[in-house]
């Protein structure tokens, strides 16, 4: 009997030949991620338990991304503490404010390897599954333990597999796919479980799309959200870290708790309605609802491919009067590429406001918050009440193309209509 990707990652990390779902293991952590919301707290907790050095500072990455540039004196003070601690603890991989979002930087700067076990003080650490790594979110106490000892306990999760077939129609993206799956299967569909995304449609998905999907696996409750590492992964690794990788996937005879066969051929653009990520419907259901703000960015959809998809819709057009279009590139690299290729100019010509690379308004800390009664359509991953400012605001989640089309129309719009109207 073979192993799933979750079993393979945890077997390797715990030095075992094989492990089976349901077992508990103590696993070695390959990489630990901390960002500015929890890093200072974790470092001071470490001090409080009498630990003044990390077991493996070279396996730790610290990113200042949530509150950038520092919107308050308090945030600036926390950032100072983080910089001091990073220097004191000898952490080499440190990305200071403005370089980008953690879940973008780790893959982009070559920190993520297929088969690795990665923990982060952030629930969207499932993103690293896009490259075949086991990435998952943990709390601050667990992080303190992991940094001090280099290991942590895990329950080996059951796995749900999605076998995806068919072709996406023009105007439909992988964001629509993951929104559809969240809506169809629910926010607790993969509670304690690992998800594997596989099948012929997945083989054709680029790394940017895989990152979008793995990122939102946690929106279905998942511990991990895996894609097998293949040629696409190998090419991405070579481009971003220098060293390629062997294929890494599940054993062919792995045991799954469930396997769902889904064809993507008939999928239409999807939208998550307020205030739950799994309240999903085809965009047509929400068409015509007026918006005040459109947000293009976040670790879900702030990559160059996302900016390009939006620019394609926005090219030669203007954002509707009364609508604010905010763009936060996921990293400085994305911003540089958008500048080089003219995408940035297209966005600016359409009337977009360009924000610093980072989490931007997704975190709800600053940089484009919503007032009571306002509506925002965004490319990010959560729409809980109060996520972006006022608890009386409404957040809709959709693809970059849908967000761009809605920004132009001033009302929620199907991007395919706009393209059809052009011809």
């Amino acid at each position, binding site marked *: 009997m073979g192993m799933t990707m979750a079993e393979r990652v945890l077997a390797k990390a715990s030095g075992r030949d094989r492990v089976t779902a349901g077992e508990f293991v103590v696993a070695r952590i390959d990489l630990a991620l901390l960002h500015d919301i929890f890093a200072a707290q974790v470092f001071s907790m470490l001090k409080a338990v009498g630990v003044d050095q990390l077991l493996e500072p070279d396996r730790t990455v610290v990113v200042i991304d949530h509150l950038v540039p520092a919107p308050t004196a308090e945030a600036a003070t926390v950032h100072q503490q983080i910089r001091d601690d990073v220097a004191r603890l000898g952490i080499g991989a440190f990305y200071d404010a403005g370089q980008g979002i953690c879940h973008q930087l780790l893959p982009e700067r070559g920190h993520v390897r297929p088969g690795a076990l990665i923990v982060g003080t952030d629930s969207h650490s499932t993103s690293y599954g896009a490259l075949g790594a086991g990435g998952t*979110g943990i*709390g601050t106490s*667990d992080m*303190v*333990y992991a940094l001090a000892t280099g290991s942590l306990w895990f329950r080996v999760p059951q796995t749900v597999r999605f076998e995806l077939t068919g072709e996406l129609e023009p105007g439909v993206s992988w964001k629509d796919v993951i929104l559809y799956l969240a809506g169809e299967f629910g926010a607790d569909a993969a509670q304690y479980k690992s998800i594997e995304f596989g099948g012929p449609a997945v083989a054709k998905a680029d790394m940017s799309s895989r990152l979008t999907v793995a990122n939102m696996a946690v929106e279905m409750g998942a511990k991990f959200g895996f894609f097998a590492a293949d040629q696409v992964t190998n090419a991405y690794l070579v481009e971003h870290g220098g060293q390629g990788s062997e294929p890494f996937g599940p054993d062919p005879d792995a045991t799954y708790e469930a396997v769902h066969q889904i064809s993507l051929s008939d999928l239409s653009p999807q939208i998550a309605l307020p205030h739950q990520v799994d309240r999903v419907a085809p965009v047509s259901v929400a068409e015509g609802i007026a918006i005040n703000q459109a947000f293009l960015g976040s670790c879900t959809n702030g990559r160059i491919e996302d900016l390009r998809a939006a620019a394609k819709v926005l090219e030669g057009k203007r954002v509707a009067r009364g609508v604010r279009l905010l763009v936060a590139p996921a990293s400085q690299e994305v911003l540089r590429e958008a500048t080089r290729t003219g995408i940035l100019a297209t966005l600016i010509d359409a009337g977009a406001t360009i924000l610093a690379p980072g989490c931007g308004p997704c975190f709800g800390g600053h940089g484009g918050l919503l007032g009571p009664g306002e509506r925002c359509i965004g490319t990010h991953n959560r729409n809980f009440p109060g996520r972006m400012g006022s608890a009386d605001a409404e957040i809709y989640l959709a693809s970059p193309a849908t967000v761009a089309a809605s920004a132009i129309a001033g009302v929620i719009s199907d991007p395919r209509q706009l393209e059809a109207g052009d011809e």
Partner: protein
Amino acid sequence: MSSQANGVGNVLRGRVWKFDHDVSTDVLSPGAYAIDPVEVRMLHVLESVNPAFASQVEPGDVIVAGRNFGCGSSRETAPENLKALGVACVCAESFARIFMRNAVAVGLPVLVCSGVHAAFENDDVGEIDLASGRVNNTDSGGELQGDSLPEEMRAILAAGGILALLKSQSGAG
């Protein structure tokens, strides 16, 4: 909590507070008090679903709940608040993953037990054996089999949480 030794004798007995499905971290640790000290935070635990809970819960009481207990954010204050109130154990049909991790990390015993939500009413007395996973309703006499807690988790709980364990490990070595 004194019965929390490794191995045998790991049985908790307490008055039951019953809650439904999908009790979120927002309910367990309301955002309005998120950055207040634990002494303040614990006074508001579950107030939106049972206003009497925080003032009337007694050390040693247990919580019985439905599916997806602790869903929502990754805030560690949710299990921390329950522990501060002296809740001896949360026994639920299922937990949100990060809540379960955080509960063990802060030293709050948890047990997954299917059927538990229907088997208890408020003020019943529950007997929970963390080692074997056995759950008894001493009022109705009903007995259920939960998923026994593995040794690794029990060791963390017995130490009083993962940081206490870390301290004892680094102190010893």
